[in-house]
């Protein structure tokens, strides 16, 4: 971020709920089927059709609301009116002034909380494919519309504009995804479009209290694009301000290949959606008991899982976040309960086990860690044994023995050092005199004698102690 400027970002995330059927009809909610095969009069918006609410979708929405610490409200569906072929009724049934969930927050792994304005329910649109030219609507020869997706339940989660860096933006989406997956309410795949992110970006001077003009970035298809597009847009704003101009409030389209945002449909006025309460549906009024049940049955969320690990000694937040993100925390806790030192368990998970455990068991890891702690294995040896445990399984002691690993114990090293002192008195005198580079010589000698099975750190430690004793 350029000096003295602050980034202000709010994210609008749409997640498709993984219900069996659509939000207002019994058609299958399924990705990848032949076009227009999961349709009926209701989701096609045929004349005379009426919507009927999918109770599971509502339940999922409330669960997500509570997971985001929102208050679950009496809600009313509203019509959002605008014309587009992918919307069969030319209005979308959504929620406007009375959404299902409001006023919550999301805790990022780093500990920062981002406020959640609202999380409401709405129906998805169909998909248009423009044929000819660039694949965009202008210049195309004709367009095809597939209504399989029309009517699929969406939850739209709107954050407060409290995100302050591209890293935070990516973490926010990542964490939200993790929650959706934990709850099982969405499979949240960016590549399939079951989670979509729009970023509202503005900048201001550090210390400035009011918000400046924002632009909405659309067509962000990966976390990487999210970061790049926010950064591009922020800089574009700053450059304008530095030039004495200011950005126009508009929707901008992210062009991944060009690495820039482009102005969307030129519109002077903001679109007026003429919202009014949906007369074909009745208000939703969840009772206390329902919400209580949701809270009681809430699965362990990522933030709770991180908290659990953070209670252990010597934990680093970023490491803990990574372990939980990879769903390795259950394994970690098992290994810790089997006697592995927490910090060592985490260290191995973060550094050596990013690709998974293979045949390694939590018990085996605990044992291995104990061996390393007792200096029965050097760190290099430990890594080798770990590799074997992952690919073959088994017990670390056996593997170490098979590999011929026997870490040389401290007493043995001490004896060797005494011997070396006798054999190389000159060098020893120089080492004790403060010549540090002679240290390498002694370490090398010990290594030679022990066939590399002495732990380098331990050797140095013993040398230093011995030199003090002189």
């Amino acid at each position, binding site marked *: 971020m350029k000096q003295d400027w602050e980034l202000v970002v709010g994210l609008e995330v749409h997640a498709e709920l993984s219900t069996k059927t659509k939000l207002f009809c019994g058609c299958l909610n399924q990705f990848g089927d032949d076009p227009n095969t999961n349709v009926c*009069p209701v989701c*096609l*918006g*045929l*004349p*005379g*059709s*009426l*919507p*009927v*609410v999918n109770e599971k979708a509502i339940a999922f929405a409330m669960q997500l609301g509570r997971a985001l610490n929102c208050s679950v409200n009496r809600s009313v569906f509203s*019509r959002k*009116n605008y*014309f587009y*072929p992918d919307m*069969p*009724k*030319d*209005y979308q049934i959504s929620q406007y002034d009375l959404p299902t969930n409001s006023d919550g927050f999301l805790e990022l792994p780093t500990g920062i909380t981002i406020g959640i304005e609202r999380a409401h329910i709405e129906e998805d649109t169909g998909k248009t494919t423009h044929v000819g030219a660039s694949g965009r*609507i202008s210049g195309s020869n004709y367009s095809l*519309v597939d209504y399989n997706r029309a009517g699929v339940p969406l939850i739209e989660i709107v954050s407060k504009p409290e995100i302050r860096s591209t890293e935070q933006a990516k973490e926010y989406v990542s964490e939200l995804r993790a929650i959706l997956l934990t709850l099982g309410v969405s499979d949240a795949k960016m590549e399939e479009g079951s989670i979509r992110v729009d970023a509202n970006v503005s900048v201001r001077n550090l210390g400035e209290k009011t918000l400046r003009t924002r632009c909405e970035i659309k067509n962000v298809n990966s976390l990487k694009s999210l970061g790049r597009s926010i950064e591009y847009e922020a800089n574009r704003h700053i450059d304008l301000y530095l030039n004495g101009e200011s950005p126009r409030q508009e929707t901008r389209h992210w062009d991944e290949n060009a690495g820039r945002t482009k102005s969307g449909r030129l519109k002077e006025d903001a679109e*007026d959606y*003429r*919202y*009014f309460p949906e*007369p*074909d*549906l*009745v208000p939703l009024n969840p009772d206390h008991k329902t919400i209580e049940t949701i809270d009681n049955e809430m699965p362990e969320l990522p933030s709770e899982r991180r908290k659990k690990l953070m209670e252990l000694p010597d934990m680093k937040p970023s490491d803990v976040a990574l372990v939980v993100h990879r769903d390795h925390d259950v394994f970690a806790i098992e290994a810790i309960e089997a006697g592995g030192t927490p910090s060592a368990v985490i260290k191995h998970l973060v550094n050596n086990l990013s690709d998974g455990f293979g045949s390694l068991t939590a018990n085996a890891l605990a044992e291995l860690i104990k061996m390393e702690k007792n200096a029965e294995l050097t760190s290099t040896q430990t890594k080798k044994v770990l590799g074997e445990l992952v690919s073959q399984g088994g017990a670390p002691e056996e593997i170490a023995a098979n590999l011929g690993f026997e870490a040389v114990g401290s007493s043995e090293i001490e004896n060797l050092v005494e011997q070396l002192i006798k054999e190389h008195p000159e060098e020893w005198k120089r080492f004790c005199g403060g010549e540090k580079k002679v240290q390498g010589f002694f370490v090398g000698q010990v290594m030679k004698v022990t066939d590399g099975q002495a732990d380098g750190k331990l050797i140095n430690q013993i040398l230093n102690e011995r030199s003090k004793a002189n």
Partner: protein
Amino acid sequence: MNSVLPESYLDANSIASKVQSGEISAVEILDQYLERIDSHEKDVHAFNLVTTEQARADALETDDLVTRGVTPGPLAGVPVAVKDNLCTKGIPTTAGSKILDGWRPPYEATVVRKLREAGATIIGKTNLDEFAMGSSTENSAFGPTKNPHDLSRVPGGSSGGSAASVAAGFAPVAIGSDTGGSIRQPAALCGVVGVKPTYGGVSRYGLLAFASSLDQVGPITTSVSDAALVNEVIAGHDPFDSTSIKDPFPPFTERIGQNVEKLKVGVIKELMGEIDGISPEVIKQTNTAALALSHAGAEVEEVSLPAVLYCLSAYYLIAPAEASSNLSRYDGVRYGLRIDGKNLTEMNINTRTEGFGDEVKRRIMLGTYALSAGYYDAYYGKALKVRRLLANNFADVYSKFDVLISPTSPCTAFKLGEKITDPMTMYVNDICTIPSNLVGHPAISVPFGVGSDGMPIGIQILAPPMRESVMYQVAAAVETAGS
């Protein structure tokens, strides 16, 4: 007067029992009506489509059941004309508009399904004001329907075709839809019975929506007991309609014929002269009907319903607002008319400009305006408040009265072309009927006498929500008094 009226009318009730017993076949009954349609329909234009083939198939099926010893339903063999804004599977459904040119619904309305399951023979799709917007059926893209009592006059609207088909003897039963009076007013103008049920009492699934919070589907018949019978058949909770009522209703027919002693009847003061434009003749007939009820033992009193004075304005904000949204789907993309343009927006505009008539366009614009940013609170928002006020007013009144009575229409059938040039004049036709739609209460129009022009007059009975049984009871008493 050039008229197309049968010598007598057949009761749906008696047709059904004769068909059930095997005394007469459904096909025979159908042929009788088809013959009459053949002779006189060209003068009336009640139908957009006479569904001869489908009707024959339905009738044969009913007869087949009887032959096999299975009793068909309560409308066995009864020909029913269905307003052309109700979906009939595989059969063109136009809503009286060019914009649905060629569209055949792939599904049928719940009401139509229930009629067929009850053994009815669907005889045709009746003409209407385009998308049910109008009070004279002159707004149809396919030409107006004539009043069978006087072919130079309107049958009323928007269910003009349905009312005319019954009055002309083309069918003993017709189904209409009522958003601001579109069943009751044409029934009154055509001298037949018309009912708007409690909102949510009859499923709207398959009814091409005009104003979702006001629309209801209901029967048009030649007698009150027939209306109750048909109402019974088409009513009931529908899981496909989220606004349909789950609670059971007291049976509609059970109080017909019972005396009205001690029932408290309120005559709505504001509709009896206070508002400009209600014809003195119509008021006089209403008073006569009220008096008749009084003679029959009812306690009749004048009652004030002040919120009635604001209903027309509230309605003409709420209905067009909802309509402007409901009619958005007619965009030339998926079905019906499409007129190409050089881009998508142009195609939409061309299609809707060509496809919609003037009144529909007028209401879409009015509705869009009322919902626009900056105007919502002043117009739509305020209209919703009037609605609540009205509901409170009614609730108050119904704590003291069982039913209310008023004229159905401020006037008798006017001449074709007389009111079409001034929308506001046309809108006033709904003044007596609109209140029931706004609050979702049931109401019925019963023929009672004629005006000095020889044209029928209808009296309206209003009842609290879900109290159709009392409404039918009092309506039957008025009917008896008027015969």
